[in-house]
């Protein structure tokens, strides 16, 4: 087991939005996190990377257990070194070029020398098909291109797991494909990923595990194949139906 979450809880202003979540991820797993809007998917991911402080819960990562509420600054820093985050709104550094976006985490926080950082960054940008736009600023790139740079930035620090929060939800429909295809490649290369998405076809074909959330709880989780072919819970069934045939 590479990553194990136990009893994650989080409330905002007295409203409990994560009400006790357990989750385990093996190396190489691609976990699709599904669920209606407002079910707490983003909050859960943000707690795992300490962008939000959970009210309770533990995380075991590489055999080391952290308190998701009370982790120290050093523990947070150590955990963040092993993880990466891809945001719905890309969040590329607006004052940096594509290349600098990728090298910054290497040269500043890992103190790597510029030459080596540049090599790694170029390789990562090639990986996502952005090698021809090294010196473009985010404002000069399309949404799909920005998100691919963001994925390159995530890859550069060699994380053990990448968290994706609806990476294609902000994109125009014609740009979704290029981002999903990059993620599909990563999955095939064995990258461990936790992906919040509404792209059901993508989730079905790429993930090996599904976690279906609603109202801050996990309603159903298990192997993707079973989830999509024979969902156990009525709510899961309903959800799959509503997402696949949104008009009915």
């Amino acid at each position, binding site marked *: 087991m590479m990553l194990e979450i136990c009893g994650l809880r989080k409330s905002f202003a007295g409203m409990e939005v994560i009400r006790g979540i357990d989750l385990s991820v093996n190396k190489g797993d691609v976990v699709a996190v599904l669920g209606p809007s407002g079910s707490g998917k983003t909050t859960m991911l943000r707690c795992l*990377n*300490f*962008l939000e402080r959970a009210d309770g819960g533990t995380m075991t990562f590489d055999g080391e257990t952290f308190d998701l509420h009370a982790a120290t600054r050093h523990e947070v*820093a150590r955990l*963040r*070194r092993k*993880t*990466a*985050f891809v*945001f719905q*709104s890309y*969040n*590329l*550094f*607006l*004052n*940096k*070029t594509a290349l600098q976006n990728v090298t*910054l*985490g290497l040269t*500043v*926080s*890992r103190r790597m020398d510029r030459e080596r950082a540049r090599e790694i960054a170029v390789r990562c940008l090639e990986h996502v098909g952005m090698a021809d736009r090294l010196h*473009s*600023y*985010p*404002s*000069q790139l399309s949404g799909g291109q920005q998100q691919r740079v963001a994925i390159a*930035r*995530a890859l*550069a*620090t060699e994380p053990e797991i990448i968290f994706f929060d609806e990476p294609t939800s902000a994109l125009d429909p014609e740009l979704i494909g290029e981002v999903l295809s990059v993620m599909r490649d990563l999955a095939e290369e064995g990258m461990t990923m936790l992906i919040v998405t509404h792209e059901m076809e993508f989730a079905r074909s790429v993930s090996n595990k599904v976690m279906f959330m609603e109202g801050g709880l996990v309603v159903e989780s298990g192997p993707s194949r079973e989830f999509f072919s024979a969902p156990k819970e009525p709510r899961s069934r309903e959800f799959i139906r509503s997402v696949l045939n949104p008009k009915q």
Partner: protein
Amino acid sequence: MNERTWNILVESFPRLLGYGIRVTVPLTLISYALAMVIAVIVALIQYADVKGLRKLCRFYVWVIRGTPLLVQLYLVFFGLPSVGITLKAFPAAVLVFGFNEGAYMAETMRGSLESVHHGQMEAGYCVGMNYLQTMWHIVLPQAFRTAFPALGNSLISMVKGTSLAATITVMEMFRQAQVINGRVSESLGLYTEVAIIYLLFCTVLTWLQRWGEKKLNSYGGQKK
């Protein structure tokens, strides 16, 4: 214009310009540097919500913005000596101009810092940078970019504001014009000359401001 007037003006112009360059310009630049340091510190304290100090910063901005610059100059130069704090005219002027414009620039900087999307900070954390590293490499540069036009305007308004230092005996350009005028009584001509020199300084600064904005625009907005 008769020949006497003309001769006075021709003689006084280089003299005034000299005072402008030797006194007005350094007075402005030193005060502005002080204002910038104050502004960044005061803005960062509020942005980072440093407890205790935040209130102090709000108090400072409130007092400075709510009182006239001229009154502040008089208070520091003529008032403080009665409690044992006696400053020379030039340093007193630098302090007052610096702290005065610093309050306005702090508000500019604070607004610019707050306009940087919080996702920038979070992305910094996620690639392993800490608070200071992210501030330094990401948030501050973006905030400065946003604040640049307003900070430039502050500099321009400060150039003109330094003429008030004449009232606390700093021998800067305007005061020099007053002195010459006391001797020759040529108000219209002399003060016109002074006005032209201020205009000259401000025009150069406006050019620099535009040039700077163009430079900084490389990552600003336009799509390619």
